[in-house]
């Protein structure tokens, strides 16, 4: 495998972490993002659990992409995803019972995490196995990274600890603000982090120049070329494109009845 090819293989991975970051750029999977990030460790384990399901389901869906009929693809994807998320649930219950208790309901809800369906629909169902696995890894890593970061900030501001280690001087100085581990603080931290991430990514993109946006994707599946002037609009559109896709899929299914 020469260097060029190697870089091409890695491309979905790096894209998933920054350009297509699920949490801050695509704004998908927001429920677990907000709900479990009261501590960094929770964010990390939720991210890893989701990554595992994402990689496995992407691989399977990509293998089956020529066998799944177009009309029933959404239920088929959901079935594959549900299988793996049940698997994760069982493994967690057996080996990490404490974490299983903490994540609770949201571990079962991995199955309705829109990241999984979105990647299945817009990437895995159109690409061969290896790129799909790489995409799963990339998006999964990006998701884990964002969740851990959010958890870190909320834990630090809300309880004055770092990965569960209490920082006594801060706690004595009265820094911890309980609001940051409450729902309101979750929304707030997420909002501000998104602003920071947007600004950082935008300045990096400006520095790199438009070279990247010229290189076309191997398959025209992704339409996420970021128009730098209309950053937030593009985000909105991504979400709406996904929803429109799902609606479209279901209307085709329904229409045949």
């Amino acid at each position, binding site marked *: 495998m020469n260097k060029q090819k190697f870089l091409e293989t890695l491309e979905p991975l790096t894209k998933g972490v920054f350009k297509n970051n699920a949490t801050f750029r695509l704004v998908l999977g927001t429920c677990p993002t907000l709900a479990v990030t009261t501590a960094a460790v929770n964010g990390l384990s939720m991210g890893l659990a989701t990554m595992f399901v994402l990689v496995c389901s992407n691989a399977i869906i990509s293998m089956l992409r020529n066998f799944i009929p177009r009309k029933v693809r959404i239920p088929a994807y959901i079935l594959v995803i549900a299988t793996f998320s049940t698997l994760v649930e069982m493994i967690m219950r057996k080996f990490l019972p404490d974490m299983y208790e903490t994540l609770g309901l949201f571990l079962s809800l991995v199955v309705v995490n829109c990241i999984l369906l979105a990647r299945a629909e817009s990437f895995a169902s159109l690409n061969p196995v290896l790129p799909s696995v790489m995409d799963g890894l990339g998006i999964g890593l990006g998701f884990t990274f964002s969740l851990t970061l959010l958890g870190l900030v909320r834990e630090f501001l809300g309880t004055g600890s770092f990965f569960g280690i209490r920082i006594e001087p801060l706690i004595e100085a009265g820094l911890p603000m309980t609001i940051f581990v409450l*729902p309101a603080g979750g929304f707030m931290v997420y*909002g501000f982090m998104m602003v920071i991430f947007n600004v950082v990514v935008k300045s990096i993109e400006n520095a790199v120049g438009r070279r990247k946006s010229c290189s076309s994707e191997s398959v025209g599946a992704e339409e996420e070329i970021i128009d730098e002037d209309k950053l937030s609009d593009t985000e909105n559109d991504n979400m709406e494109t996904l929803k429109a896709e799902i*609606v479209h899929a*279901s209307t085709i299914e329904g229409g045949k009845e």
Partner: protein
Amino acid sequence: MPYVLLIVINAVFVNNFVLSRFLGICPFLGVSKKTETALGMGLAVIFVMGVASVITYAINLALVAFGMEYLQTIVFILVIAALIQLVEIFVKRFSPSLYSALGVYLPLITTNCAVLGVAIMNVTELSEVNVLYAFVNGVASGIGFTIAILILAGIREKMETADIPAAFKGFPITLLAASVIAMSFAAFSGLSF
């Protein structure tokens, strides 16, 4: 009867689905640009959550009887997906006007974690369970969702004309607005039972 009232107040205000449990955030952020669409989505969610609660409750009885609780997630999500498809076909056939109002939102609900969430919560978290309580919990949770999304949509409509810094436009400012709403709903936690 008092327990029913307790479930309703708890689901609508104290543990609001969106603002304190973080379920159904995707539609909450995605479909809240206009109050009309927000209302449509809310009504569809109330309807589906009510029906799904009853059906998943019944199915759970069967699962427990056969000792197959580990299949809960898979079975629930498939049942919900099928149910939504069925509801769509029925509404389309018998009430075209309702279909044109709710139609677009029904398929979106398949990936709304609130529906699966309420189904799982009904069988794991309610202290006393029967069909009525499950149904009431479903409907009340849907109402909680509708209230939250309507408030946010109202705020977002006002923000359309506001002068917002470029980096905050779109989702960030929406999240901050949601944060303020969540803060006000946090006051209800004093009511906790």
